[in-house]
């Protein structure tokens, strides 16, 4: 016979009530776990995604650069554009190793919208890890497909089976055949979901002749980035952001969002704690006679306190543990959930299980448990044995 058997005896006597109490804590712990794990996964995913842009600086037309980047990442149409000659101006700047122009748009194929990106061979200098089966587009209407797009088209389209075939798409109201001259090997980034063509093709199809949407810039020396940004912004109507800035901003936003949610969850946990306190108080009331008995047969106040305290703590601990368990499941489903609500998402799975999340989602309920069981346990310990024994 030990503390555990006696505590377990107490919990299992009121199975439903114990279960409900644990359930309250579990729900809060699940949410807590998911929040932390998904946030970590999201940040890591975003960082990887932004690194895969290859550029350190992105120059866009004056406006909100974060909006521009967000739209770029989701594959929409960016409102403002730059004149093409800006590219040469930037290329001439002292610290610039590569300045690669990009035109972003979309086309319709197989009843879905697909991102279309117009680039020059300069982009290959930025995306040094790219491996293209076939070749890079050179002539009008030639495209390279990202690996996911290629696979989807091969499965679902009748006309496209491999390199050399064409896809007949709709852009800007016109129907155009695009010849697939290459397929990009899987990169694990948004590139796999994109279609690349020559700058001229994109400009023509999207009615952006002589314009570019963004210039991806690789510098020679990272230390010189601030000076280079000044130089770029000296060009009229041009704004430059570093990828690091974007990451920093996203981090702050995520942190702010998380802090808010965190507060909400803390409230939920407090409510769960109040539920536990209620459960424990009821247990003390119901077992008043038993407590009187235990005191009569030799239990000290400390032993009574320890008994009830352990019971409340156990309820919260297991609530937290189950919460972490279920939270693991919801986290793995997290992408599906998050994508409904968050517009900018990294490719790949955001759900990542982390020990930090487990620790938090168990320790917080335990902390709440300690606070909420204290009062009931103290009451139990302080009961007068004679009055307790007289209780019905």
């Amino acid at each position, binding site marked *: *016979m030990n503390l555990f058997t006696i505590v377990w005896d107490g919990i299992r006597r009121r199975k439903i009530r114990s279960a409900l109490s644990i359930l309250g804590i579990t729900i809060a712990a699940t949410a807590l776990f998911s929040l932390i794990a998904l946030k970590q996964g999201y940040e890591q995913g975003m960082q990887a995604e932004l690194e895969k842009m290859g550029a350190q600086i992105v120059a866009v037309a004056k406006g909100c650069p974060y909006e521009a980047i967000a739209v770029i990442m989701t594959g929409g149409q960016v409102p403002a554009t730059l004149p093409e000659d800006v590219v040469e101006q930037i290329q001439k700047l002292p610290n610039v190793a590569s300045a690669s122009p990009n035109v972003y748009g979309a086309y319709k194929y197989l009843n879905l919208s697909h991102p279309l990106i117009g680039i020059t061979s300069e982009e290959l200098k930025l995306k040094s890890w790219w491996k293209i089966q076939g070749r890079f587009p050179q002539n009008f209407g030639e495209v390279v497909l990202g690996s996911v797009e290629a696979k989807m088209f091969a499965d679902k389209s009748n006309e496209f089976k491999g390199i050399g075939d064409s896809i007949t798409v709709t852009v800007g109201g016109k129907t155009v055949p695009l010849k697939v001259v290459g397929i990009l090997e899987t990169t694990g980034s948004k590139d796999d979901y994109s279609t690349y063509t020559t700058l001229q093709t994109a400009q023509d199809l999207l009615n952006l002749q002589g314009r570019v949407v963004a210039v991806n810039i690789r510098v020679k020396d990272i230390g010189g980035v601030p000076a280079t940004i000044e130089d770029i912004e000296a060009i009229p109507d041009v704004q430059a952001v570093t990828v690091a800035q974007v990451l920093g901003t996203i981090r702050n936003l995520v942190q702010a969002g998380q802090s808010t949610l965190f507060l909400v969850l803390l409230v939920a946990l407090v409510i769960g704690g109040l539920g536990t306190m209620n459960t424990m108080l009821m247990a003390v009331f119901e077992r008043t006679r038993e407590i009187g008995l235990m005191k*009569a047969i030799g239990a000290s106040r400390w032993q009574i306190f320890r008994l009830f305290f352990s019971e409340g703590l156990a309820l919260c601990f297991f609530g937290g543990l189950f919460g972490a368990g279920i939270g693991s499941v919801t986290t793995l489903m997290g992408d599906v959930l998050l994508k409904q609500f968050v517009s900018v998402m990294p490719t790949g799975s955001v759900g990542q299980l982390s020990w930090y999340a487990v620790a938090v989602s168990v320790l917080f309920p335990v902390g709440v448990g300690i606070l909420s069981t204290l009062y009931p346990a103290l009451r139990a310990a302080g009961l007068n044995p004679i009055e307790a024994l007289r209780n019905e």
Partner: protein
Amino acid sequence: MIHIENLSKTYRRGQEEVRALVNVSLNVEAGEFLAVVGPSGSGKSTLLNIVGLLDRPTSGRISIAGKPCEKLGTREAELLRRNTIGFVFQQFLLVPTMTALQNVMLPMYFAGDPAAREKATELLHRVGLGNRLLHLPSQMSGGEIQRVAVARALANNPSILLADEPTGNLDSRTAEDIFNLLREINQAGTTVIVVTHNTELAASLPRTITIRDGKVIADVKKDASAA
């Protein structure tokens, strides 16, 4: 063993002041077997509670095994009670979800006794319930349950056994069995004090103290030759 001098207990019930015990004085030698009788509300249970260190007197003195107890701190009372005194109650008060064995082990758990299981088994055998070790209270008769309670009261080898109306919820045949059990225990050396309504069974004990309105009005020791 138990020495009580001018002991009084008064408590409040709402607006009323109740004088449960008034200037009680008596002595109990080690190894005695005695009954405390009296009408309801006479103060017999209060006396038992004070002797059992569950309650403190308002005034007067009480010492147990030579140790003065009227001003004992809670912790000291807990320890003294644990090691010296065993309780048997009218309502049995076994933990319903624990087996007979576990119920008897419970006081030993609180006392931190590592040999709880063996000692509990032995005690249950001693009260004749060796075949009921793993049964729950719901699976036993009233008499058997009270026997378990007696075994439990003996768990920490007390020198004093206090029984508050132990046969109140039992039929006459079983009541007699329990009294015989208490007698056996007394003969093995334990001081046994029984508070009871049952004047017939009380008369079979060597000494009877009668209480009324908080005062001892009679203290009759049977002649050794007349027993």
